[in-house]
């Protein structure tokens, strides 16, 4: 198509409009997200503390300090334990809930709402309720456990159980999200696959799950795991308000350490280094997810 003078004028007008319309968003994106992300990486290579007049480039010194920092390793370990337990628990329970709800014909809306409400609620407020529930003597959990013969403990004060108490809260909050995402995946499975199975001689729950549901949920599974993992990595509120990293640093997690160093102790560059580690983990998770999904579509 030959470019007439007027058509290239039109093109230019369209391009101009494109730039103008995108400009506010682009500016904000750079100012609030991309720019600071780059800054944080750069900052981690300096020795700047908050409020100081000058800064010095120190290369990977902060990372060296992190490597030797006992608290950092405890924090990382705790975070990985947290993610390592809450992700399978959340995904498994979310899938179970989704399958059960899809399999009944009455009360779906109620169940769906009941399981999802924690996701919408204010975590902090609910965390305080959980704190009360974990109370060693009058808390609901110990009263219930005591009544049915399960062991009780001072959940939030005992270094051996505190992290698990927080994990319980985290799973409770994210389960509904996993469930909803699985339900979307389940409804996308064509019904006639189950009918073909029935004609082929398989109409029991195990065969249906194994031959159709599970394979078809593959992409959803990868996605839910990634989303849940990233959200779990971001654990902060419950630690900040309920345990403050204790008892005995048993609930010290990555973001909490970052805030301690970067804001409470005003060691901005050190905090920036921790932030970069955090970023590496979350980006890796997303990339893993993308790779896993690509492989699925090409070889699945």
């Amino acid at each position, binding site marked *: 198509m030959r470019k007439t003078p007027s058509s290239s004028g039109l093109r230019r007008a*369209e*391009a*101009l*409009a*494109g*730039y103008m*319309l*995108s400009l*506010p*968003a*682009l500016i904000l*994106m750079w100012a*609030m*997200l*991309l720019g600071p*992300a780059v*800054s*944080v990486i750069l900052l981690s290579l300096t020795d700047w503390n908050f409020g100081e007049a000058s800064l010095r480039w120190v290369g990977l010194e902060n990372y060296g300090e992190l490597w030797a920092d006992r608290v950092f390793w405890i924090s990382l370990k705790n975070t990985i334990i947290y993610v390592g337990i809450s992700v399978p628990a959340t995904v498994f329970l979310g899938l179970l*809930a989704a399958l059960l709800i899809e399999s*009944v014909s009455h*009360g779906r809306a*109620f*169940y769906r*709402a009941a*399981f999802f*409400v*924690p*996701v*919408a*609620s*204010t975590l*902090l*407020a*609910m965390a*305080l*309720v959980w704190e*009360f529930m974990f109370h060693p*003597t*009058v808390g*609901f959990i110990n*009263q219930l456990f005591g009544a049915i013969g399960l062991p009780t403990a001072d959940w939030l004060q005992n270094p051996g159980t505190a992290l698990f108490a927080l994990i319980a809260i985290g799973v*409770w909050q994210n389960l*509904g999200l996993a469930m*909803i*995402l699985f339900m*979307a995946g389940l409804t996308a499975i064509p019904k006639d696959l189950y009918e073909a199975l029935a004609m082929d001689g398989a109409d029991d729950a195990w065969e249906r799950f194994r031959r159709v549901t599970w394979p078809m949920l593959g992409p959803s599974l990868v*996605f*839910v795991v990634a989303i849940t993992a990233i959200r779990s990595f971001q654990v*902060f*509120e419950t630690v*900040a*308000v309920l345990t403050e990293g204790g008892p005995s640093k048993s609930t010290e997690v990555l*973001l909490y350490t970052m*805030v301690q160093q*970067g804001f409470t102790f005003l060691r*901005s560059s050190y905090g*920036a280094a921790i932030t970069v580690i*955090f*970023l590496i983990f*979350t980006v890796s998770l997303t990339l893993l997810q993308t790779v896993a999904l690509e492989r699925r579509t090409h070889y699945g």
Partner: protein
Amino acid sequence: MVNRLGLLLRHSVLIIGAAVMLAPFIIMVSISLKPPGEVFAPQFSLLPQQWYVVENYTAAFTRVPLARFILNGFIVTFCIFLMQALTALPMAYALAKLHFRGRETCFALVVLALLIPPQVPAIPLYIALWQLDLLNTYAGIILPSTISVFGIFMMRQFFRTVPNDLIAAARMDGLGEFAIVWRIMLPTALPALAAFACLSFIWNWNEFFWPFLVVQDEALMTPPLGIAFFSNAEAGTSFGPLMAAATAVTAPLVLAFLFAQRAFIEGVTMSGIK
């Protein structure tokens, strides 16, 4: 019949599950109705012997400026969503329907920004706002959230499904690109926008991390901050009013959720379908 038994079993499991999920809410409301003596009573009971509703809720609203916290919640979420919509919609349209050099690069930037968790920019943003003297202000709370890359992504996906003929007709009628965004694209995108609004509302109402860093004044506290403040200030002595405050803060969300379940869940599902 095996079928009946299986159905009964499934419902039982679901009901127990629902009870576990709802237990904290029920306990929260239950405690907010009880006087101090009963809160720590050895016997567990759902309803109070002595109804302390008025006292607890009044205490909640007077011991800390709870009404102010809730108001701040509305102010902050409203301003954030407004800014998000104002910036995301035009860019989403440009990415979806307009042709210009660097369009793919812009989209790549959006995807890149999606990879960045909200806590990563915290330190530099804090420093920048400190230098601009915007710490501890509404602007300080609102600014970092004004850009929603997720919103841009979601609306772009949606705009791509709008037929090109509609836009061509609008252009022939004399509408400029800017007008097209607001008068053509926005009305067709209302369901998607509603879903996004719900997500934005929940997310920003509940946001703790950034306001925690930026806010010092009681008067500026958003609901989660206010609750945390209350909890620290009263240090475990007045659970009743604390739970009343928690109920008051959670109520708008839960009510909104119940009324707009479809939009909420659609929004969340769409956040999944990347």
